[in-house]
């Protein structure tokens, strides 16, 4: 059983937002809403300033407060790859999952249900890459099985330094940022 994850090389990401547009197009994300987005983080003291640009989305965590808080079971872990999904016609729009996510990765779709990144599971199950990974012009995004030690993502995580977002929140995110 695979455990899908993403590895993003922040040294290659230029923040062009191609991934954002690809996601919006592929998933019909309504105007004004984002399933993925670009974060620019700068820190340091002049003249020693560091900047990291990264593309963010739902982390498809291994510990999922968004799933456990859901009163109807709409928010769930998919059978394939441990991907976190929402069944629209089971969601009541109570917004508990939106509150429970420390990354604020979820939003309420104009149609009423909670929505977020699906890792393009509809594409992945057909053997394709998620739309954002597919279009990245700098090839900074990698998608694959974290449980397979020979997968591209596993090899990158073994050979490069990386971090995850908000590790202290205890969610064990499955998106890794190479630094």
């Amino acid at each position, binding site marked *: 059983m695979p455990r899908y994850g993403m590895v993003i090389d922040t040294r290659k990401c230029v923040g062009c937002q191609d991934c954002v547009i690809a996601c919006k197009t592929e998933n019909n994300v309504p105007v004004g809403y984002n399933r993925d987005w670009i974060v620019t983080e700068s820190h340091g003291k002049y003249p020693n300033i560091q900047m990291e640009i990264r593309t963010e989305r739902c982390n498809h965590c291994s510990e999922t407060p968004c799933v456990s808080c859901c009163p109807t079971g709409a928010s769930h872990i998919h059978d394939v790859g441990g991907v976190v999904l929402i069944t629209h016609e089971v969601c*009541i729009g109570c917004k508990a999952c939106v509150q429970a996510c420390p990354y604020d990765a979820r939003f309420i779709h104009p149609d009423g249900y909670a929505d977020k990144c699906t890792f393009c599971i509809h594409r992945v199950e057909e053997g394709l890459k998620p739309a954002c990974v597919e279009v990245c012009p700098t090839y900074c995004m990698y998608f694959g099985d974290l449980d397979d030690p020979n997968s591209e993502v596993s090899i990158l995580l073994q050979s490069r330094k990386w971090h995850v977002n908000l590790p202290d929140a205890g969610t064990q995110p499955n998106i890794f940022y190479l630094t």
Partner: protein
Amino acid sequence: MMNDLLELTTTRHNPHVDPIMAMWEWQIPVYLFLGGMVAGMMIIAGYFLFSGRHKESNCACFSIPTISIVLLSLGMFALFLDLSHKLYVWRLYTTFQFKSPMSWGAWILILVYPALIANILIRPSAWMLKIYPKLTEYAGRLNQHPFLIKNIGILNMILGLMLGAYTGVLLSSMGSRPLWNTSLLWVLFLVSGLSAAAAFVHLFAKNKAESELLAKADNGFLVIELFVLVMIFLGFLSSARPHIEAAQLLLTGAYAPVFWVFVIGLGIVIPLIIQLLAVNHKIRHTAIAPIMVIVGGLILRFVIVSAGQYSHWFNAHFH
């Protein structure tokens, strides 16, 4: 790293999520307040039934359940208004999600109604008897068994406790919002609910002894509430950075004015002083202190829900 440049910019601009989370608006604090106050009223009515106070013909325990049903239904309606996928609300009741406090709450709410109705049946109001005269017969049969009345009292106390506690657990189980993430939140909400309930029942209690008892109890609840708040902040301030920052939001930050003036000052300390003077017969009982307590309880829910959404883990990431 104190003077370092720290900057985080995002291209995300999801409605009600960015720049700060504001998903839950007035509906949730209103529900939490009404739910908490009804929980307190159930505990008070349950205690009156359990301790035999219902033998007094003007015991408040006979008017509490009807008012509770109305207030709780209003609260649940507010909750319904908050749902953004309203047509699917029935999905709450085709499943039980063990790990979800909201699922627990949905089922607890269903159990609360029969307990309140059982309480009403002990002595139905005149207008109920007019609509359904058979109630006299049920009430008569029920009153032949004092142990049944005692058990209805216990049932009301237990369900009141569950209702009051769950409103706190609902928020405190969210590790993502540091301000809510304290295991004392349910105690705060329960005590605040009890205090608002004691104040509210005091306003309409016809029995003099009961009215006095409720004012005294309310003073006790207000003192405990202050104590619990101190404990919550002690916990936060000695915890990790996100929790320290969450506490500062209320103590010195953006929410400090409303917290100190309306929650602590006008909601707890001043009514406590007024009511202490009143129960010691220095001044007469008026509606002022109870109303301040009730409004303070409502504002407390607004502050906690709003500031809780504001509190986050992002800064933990930088330091």
